[in-house]
């Protein structure tokens, strides 16, 4: 006999309800990866409430510089106003809604709507329109400024915005992840800069695939990326590569680290950055603990909830002739539909690096992790096919659940790592999917909370994700 449950396609509500329970078992319903109703709910509850990445300040260095960006699927102008302040303005004219920012990049002191000529300063302030007195003698211009994101904050040049008045400050939202931003991006006096424009491309996949994968799916490199080991692009042997840490930073922010056991270990330090780059890293810019971790770091990868991922790692675009270079790519998984994602990929270097090393770093990162990258190419294949599976009626009626159980239970290989030098909760080695469980737990909380989701500490998060007794490491 079929169960009543198997008799029909469940609603979004039911799926979320079932998921509340199944997540404790490390099981996630397939349906959340390709469902129109859930996708609409994500736009409503996740993307218009979370702190979303907008861009890096170095993309708009001068007053008037602007780029077009998206929060979820909605267009915003990322602009530096004449006073130098960074703003995130909704790109819809307050008159009738035409776009006011007609290019994806440029410099403008004003945005002028093409339809009737309403004109705004790059602060968003409405300043006039043709024949203003005759047309709008009584209108209060102040009421019709461009709408702005509710709050905008920047850390090490990375700009985030939220549309929700109830959102906590960015620092609070980031939880323990904040500490790691200093480790990775706070070392040099003049900080980071983006090279060129972000790549953009589309896949017929759900946006969460990328977020999940970068949250710590190291395990897939063993098989999916086997060609990379074979031709020497990635030079750490596959099994050795698993000897690293999974870090829960709370609030759904997750990381995976590969670090040297100590400073004297012969492998790469400081993510493989060239000594000329390492010279720029100054102990004074961070705490000793942070500096120590940076020193020993080989690979850092992670996802800031909901959809910003990063990868800091030594890579080469030409394994035969060029040694690996420290690289940093930051990528955003922008939702475009239940099974459609637009990937944005930025390549980031240290502002004061020699040009030659910037180019090597750029080419190494772009040659491996990008629309054409020989690493990332392969990820599109499973991600797209997961959307196919997740969209089936079979998956819906049978409540097909995906398995994120790796590392659960007392006997798992991966254990809480007492030696982890940073905040949050870490596990070692990387045979575990707890980082993904925490990510989906946070997602589930956003999807089901009517009021703004409360913070979850790394400890709670790691514990709830299938571990009972974990205690975090203070930093």
């Amino acid at each position: 006999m079929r169960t009543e449950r198997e008799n029909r396609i469940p609603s979004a509500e039911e799926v979320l309800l079932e998921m509340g329970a199944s997540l404790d078992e490390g099981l996630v319903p397939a349906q959340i990866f390709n469902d129109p109703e859930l996708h609409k709910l994500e736009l409503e509850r996740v993307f218009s409430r979370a702190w979303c990445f907008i861009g890096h300040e170095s993309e708009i260095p001068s007053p008037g510089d602007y780029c077009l960006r998206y929060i979820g699927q909605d267009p915003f102008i990322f602009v530096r106003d004449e006073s130098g302040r960074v703003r995130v303005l909704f790109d819809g004219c307050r008159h009738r809604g035409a776009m006011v920012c007609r290019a994806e990049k440029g410099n403008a002191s004003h945005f002028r709507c093409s339809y009737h000529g309403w004109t705004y300063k790059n602060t968003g302030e409405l300043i006039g329109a043709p024949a203003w007195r005759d047309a709008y003698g009584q209108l209060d211009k102040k009421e019709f400024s461009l709408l702005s994101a509710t709050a905008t904050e920047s850390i090490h040049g990375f700009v985030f915005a939220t549309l929700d008045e109830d959102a906590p400050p960015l620092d609070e939202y980031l939880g323990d992840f904040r500490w790691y931003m200093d480790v990775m991006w706070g070392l040099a006096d003049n900080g980071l800069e983006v090279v060129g424009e972000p790549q953009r491309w589309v896949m017929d996949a759900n946006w969460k695939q990328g977020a999940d994968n970068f949250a710590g799916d190291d395990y897939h490199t063993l098989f999916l990326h086997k060609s990379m080991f074979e031709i020497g692009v990635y030079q750490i042997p596959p099994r050795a590569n698993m000897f690293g840490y999974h870090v829960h930073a709370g609030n759904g922010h997750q990381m995976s680290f590969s670090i040297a056991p100590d400073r004297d270990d012969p492998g790469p330090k400081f993510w493989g950055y060239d000594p000329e780059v390492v010279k720029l890293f100054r102990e004074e810019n961070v705490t000793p603990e942070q500096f120590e971790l940076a020193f020993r770091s080989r690979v850092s990868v992670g996802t800031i909830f909901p959809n910003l991922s990063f990868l800091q790692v030594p890579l080469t675009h030409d394994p035969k002739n060029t040694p690996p270079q420290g690289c940093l790519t930051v990528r955003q998984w922008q939702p475009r539909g239940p099974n459609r994602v637009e990937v944005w990929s930025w390549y980031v270097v240290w502002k004061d690096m020699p040009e030659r090393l910037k180019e090597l770093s750029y080419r190494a990162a772009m040659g491996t992790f990008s629309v054409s990258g020989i690493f990332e190419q392969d990820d599109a294949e499973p991600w797209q096919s997961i959307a196919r599976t997740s969209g089936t009626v079979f998956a819906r009626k049978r409540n097909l659940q995906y398995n994120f159980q790796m590392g659960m239970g007392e006997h798992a290989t991966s254990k809480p790592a007492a030696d982890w030098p940073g905040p949050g909760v870490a596990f070692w080695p990387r045979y575990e999917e707890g980082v993904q469980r925490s990510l989906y737990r946070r997602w589930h909380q956003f999807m089901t909370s009517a009021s703004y989701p409360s913070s979850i500490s790394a400890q709670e998060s790691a514990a709830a994700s299938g571990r009972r007794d974990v205690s975090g490491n203070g930093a």
Partner: protein
Amino acid sequence: MQAETPTSAFVTSAAEADIETYFTALQWLHHEAELLDDNRITEWFELIDQDIDYRVPIRVTRERAAGPGFSTDGWHMFEDYGSLAARVARLETEYAWAEDPPSRTRRLVTNVRAARHGDGSLIEVKSNLLIYRGRYDAPEFNLIAGERHDTLRRSDDRIRLLKRMVLLDQATVATHNLAIFL
């Protein structure tokens, strides 16, 4: 990392080309496309000059006055002989999932405009390109359109690709990856 603006003066106007140069370039481009569409990647790689400079600039929408929007420091591909060799080597492993099963591609090469250059050993050739790309059993497909600015070099009696700049007609690339050569 800066390159000249991709659309700066490159080949002399089509009106000045001679038919023999045209036909040489045309045949070379057809042959190249055939090897790629037939998945004969190793043979294709033999058409590549060791000094190859192969790039696909990122494009952003700019106002008309700001030009066509090709980046001079952001790229979708930026390859030399070594990195192309790595790509070819990878496709020969058993784990090149991105193209296994291979995409079904069809390269429509049109509007070929060629001119001799330098001492006569170089041909500069512009061509328009439309790539049809299908995968699995989906009747849907991707189209990739663009213009290519190539420099061909004759040496050892063979013609090889010395430079390629692929100018895509898309700001957001409309395919899930560039695991194929353009």
